[in-house]
């Protein structure tokens, strides 16, 4: 009997205007959103490939160790097509410096070509599913009892030999029979678009994640079905039911997420990033003063023939006198360990700022337990590896790598080596007096020996330098992050179902 009711409801729904509107809405919104996000992913991939090639080229084309500053470029997540998470807010590129512990990743993913466009937000597949499927769940179940009652068919049904539980399960099955094809259609359509898109290839593991996303969407949709069914069992007319349902929908989907984020930002305070930067600048000034004082304690003329310098102690010189090169080595031996010390000192301020941001995030996560849409978003971003956890894991791997990299330089006493600042053999630097004599015989720059120019020398062999390795989060780790949240949604849905059963037992059929 329950199956008959389910079949009848399914067929009635299928020819209803609401099904047509819902189907059309999905038919327009889903492909559009997926195409937009595929496009976005392709752009990210293009940027990643360009940046990676550039980083590798720059790393290899170094002649002195002071110029060895590896750049790590993070590939975009293909699953960000489904759920962007925080991937739009954070960068994808980190350069390893001696003088700075990386706080955030930099790069184009965090800064659009046009920052003015940041005033517009964007949506992804999961946002659309969250909005549309919850709305459809409410629209198809708000009048589950009241409609039959208003039409007078409820009494008629129960004049037959049918139990209330059969009727209830038939009705709910009817809603599932209507909504599951829509949900499945959305996923199949988006997967087809992805399959036929250029440059997008999902691995078997990714497809497994998509299947899990479908499962999460199903549970999320069930929550709204049971919520709406419960409300329908409590009120007498359809209009009251839909009004209450819609208020709950707008509260859960549009108001609560914004209110909770605003409250989190209000009550968990984070200082201004620029003020943190000023504090770091003060330490940089202190470091510079110490270096200047050290330089001034020696009386030497630092005339260089060919010098290239840059950020983080990059220093490349050739064609100097032995006295100057010895002095520069002395400076580097003093300066670079001090630079590393100051990086640790600056990290205190950076860490405090990061901790404050994370405190806000944790509070936001706690608030998310009160909103099914926020929970669903958290589960999805975790499954798509675009959440804060994944980013923080990447950044802590990068920081660990920096430690290894710095330790390699310290252990091998690189700062004391001439190769740290010059590609020229130390024994070929003439004494100052001899160099001055050589200079007197040179009339124009073309007369200088080629060994005085850095491009005369080959690039360094950097095969010994430690290499960064990406750590992928395992499926079990991701599931462990999501399983509690999913279970919570399941439990709440069961509670609503149980309450509906209780309420429907006493439902006045007249």
């Amino acid at each position, binding site marked *: 009997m329950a199956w008959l009711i389910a079949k009848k409801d399914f067929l009635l729904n299928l020819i209803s205007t609401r099904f047509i509107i819902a189907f059309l809405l999905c038919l327009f919104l889903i492909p559009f959103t997926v195409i937009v996000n595929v496009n976005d992913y392709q752009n990210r991939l293009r940027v990643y490939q360009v940046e990676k090639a550039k980083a590798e080229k720059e790393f290899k084309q170094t002649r002195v160790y002071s110029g060895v500053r590896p750049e790590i470029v993070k590939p975009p997540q293909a699953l960000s097509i489904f759920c962007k998470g925080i991937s739009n807010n954070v960068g994808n590129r980190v350069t390893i410096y001696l003088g700075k512990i990386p706080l955030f990743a930099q790069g184009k993913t965090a800064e659009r070509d046009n920052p*003015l466009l*940041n005033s517009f937000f964007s*949506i992804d597949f999961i*946002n659309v599913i969250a*909005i549309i499927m919850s709305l459809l769940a409410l629209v198809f179940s708000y009048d589950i009892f009241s409609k039959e009652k208003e039409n007078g068919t409820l009494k008629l049904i129960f004049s037959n030999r049918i139990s209330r539980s059969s009727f209830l399960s038939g009705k709910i099955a009817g809603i599932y029979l209507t909504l599951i094809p829509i949900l499945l259609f959305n996923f199949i359509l988006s997967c087809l678009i992805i399959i036929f898109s250029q440059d997008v290839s999902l691995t078997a593991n990714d497809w497994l994640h998509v299947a899990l996303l479908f499962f999460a969407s199903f549970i999320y949709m069930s929550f709204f079905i049971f919520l709406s069914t419960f409300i329908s069992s409590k009120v007498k007319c359809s209009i009251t039911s839909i009004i209450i349902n819609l208020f709950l929908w707008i509260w859960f989907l*549009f108001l609560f*997420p914004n209110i909770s984020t605003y409250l989190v930002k209000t009550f968990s305070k984070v200082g201004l990033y620029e003020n943190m930067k000023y504090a770091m600048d003060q330490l940089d000034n202190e470091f510079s003063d110490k270096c200047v004082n050290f330089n001034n304690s020696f009386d030497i003329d630092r005339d260089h023939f060919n010098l290239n310098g840059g950020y983080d102690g990059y220093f490349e010189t050739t064609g100097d006198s032995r006295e100057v090169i010895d002095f520069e080595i002395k400076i580097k031996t003093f300066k670079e360990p001090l630079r590393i010390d100051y990086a640790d000192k600056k990290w205190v301020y950076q860490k405090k700022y990061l901790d404050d941001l994370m405190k806000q995030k944790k509070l936001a996560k706690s608030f998310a337990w009160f909103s099914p849409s926020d929970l669903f978003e958290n589960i999805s971003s975790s499954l798509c590896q675009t959440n804060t956890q994944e980013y923080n894991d990447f950044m802590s791997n990068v920081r660990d790598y920096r430690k290894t990299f710095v330790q390699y330089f310290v252990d091998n006493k690189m700062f004391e080596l001439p190769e740290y600042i010059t590609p020229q053999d130390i024994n070929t630097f003439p004494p100052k007096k001899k160099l001055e004599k050589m200079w007197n015989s040179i009339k124009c720059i073309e007369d200088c020996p080629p060994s005085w120019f850095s491009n005369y020398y080959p690039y360094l062999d950097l095969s010994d330098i430690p290499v960064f390795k990406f750590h992928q989060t395992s499926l079990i780790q991701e599931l462990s992050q999501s399983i509690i949240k999913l279970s919570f949604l399941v439990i709440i849905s069961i509670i609503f179902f149980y309450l509906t059963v209780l309420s429907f037992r006493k439902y006045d059929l007249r």
Partner: protein
Amino acid sequence: MLKTIFIREIQQNVSSLRFQISLFIVIITFAIGTVSYIISYKDNIKNFEKYEKENIKRIREDAKESASILAVNNRMFMHRPKSNGFISDCKDKYFPNQYNYSAYYVRDFQIGKGSVNPFIKDSNEINWVFIVTVILSFLSLLFSFDLISGEKETRTLALCLSNSISRGTLFFGKYLSVITVIMLETIIGVIISLIILLIFGDIQFTNIIIIDILGFLVFTLIFVACVTAFGLLTSVITKKSNISLLYSLAIWLIFIVIIPNTSIFWANKLFKIEHVEAVINKKDKEADEINRNAPEGSWSSNSGNLFHPEHELRAKNQTNLLNNEKKYMDAYNNSRLRQLESTRLFTLFSPVCLFNYITEAYLGGGYLRFKKNWNGLHVYQKQFLGFFKNFDAKDNKSPHWYNPYENYSTTRKFVDISEVPVYKEKQILFGERLQYLSNYLIIMIIYTGVIFFLGFAVFVKYDVRG
């Protein structure tokens, strides 16, 4: 007769469940939003003042060292938190709010890193404009979707029109009543918010703030009228209220979710601009060319001797490099501005976007504020450079070879900071704001009129029989 219909509708609406629930939500959100604003405003001002103090300290230090260092060093100007942010934050934190400049060049603009927590997804602040655009627009549709189709279902429409009452009067009476009810909820919310602000807030209620509040209410009225017209239209194009509701919800989703949230896609497809790397590549290529063609000695320097002859060549080369940077980056920045302006035109289909642009301009925030500061800094930069050149001209120990990036060949004299022109953000004039919003306002009024009359035209032929 209009009065009777109007009063009857108001009574019906006010006693309805949807009014009670919506009023509760409106009061709660206005109260939460205002309390949060008061707390965060105090905090933001404290952080900003700390930043400003440090900024001034740096300017003083540079001025003390020399006027040249003051001129060439890169400075940053940052927006001060707005005191009328409880009405709307105008998405100021998502707009570029920091500008880099020196006496020679207004380099670029950016969104302050500290403006948003990157680990938390983008969200709106709970201010009056947010409440109007999300809650009140929803309520306008919720109160109007069954005005005609609902009455038809209950068979009171035919009954009503069997009296000596024109369809126009009935239609207009219903329309007015919904607008009145929504405005009543808005005013209640605004009053509660103002009471909280008066008791706990640090905000002074100057004439400007009062005018801002009154203006907000006027624009809200027009916005509500516009959305209600859509609700009424959905009510007359269907015979069943549940179908009207679906249409209303679809329209609401299009206005509030689809149009604003797909803008970036349209911007990149329809109003494409060059990738920043391509622009930088071109600029760097030409810079390499400039360096290659520079006379020998153009990179020579001697920090101990201002009159080192090659400093003149170096200054010329650096000026050429700056002009090259200006040529590419100014053109690129202008294309960015044009891209936003074109994208905004595309979003004008949505009354929600229109209302946001109107309030943003009226409150002197968002894009208008950004543009005003961007242009203002360009004017100021010329003044600053003029001041520096005058100061340098008076120093006969300076060779006056202006180098935009370095202080090798200009005055080493310190400058009294009180003499240096300082950039201050100017209040945007009321007339200027009105001029900026007028186009949006006219579109919204026309939009409202067209949808209302379309609804009425359909209603004239509406089959009122049950």
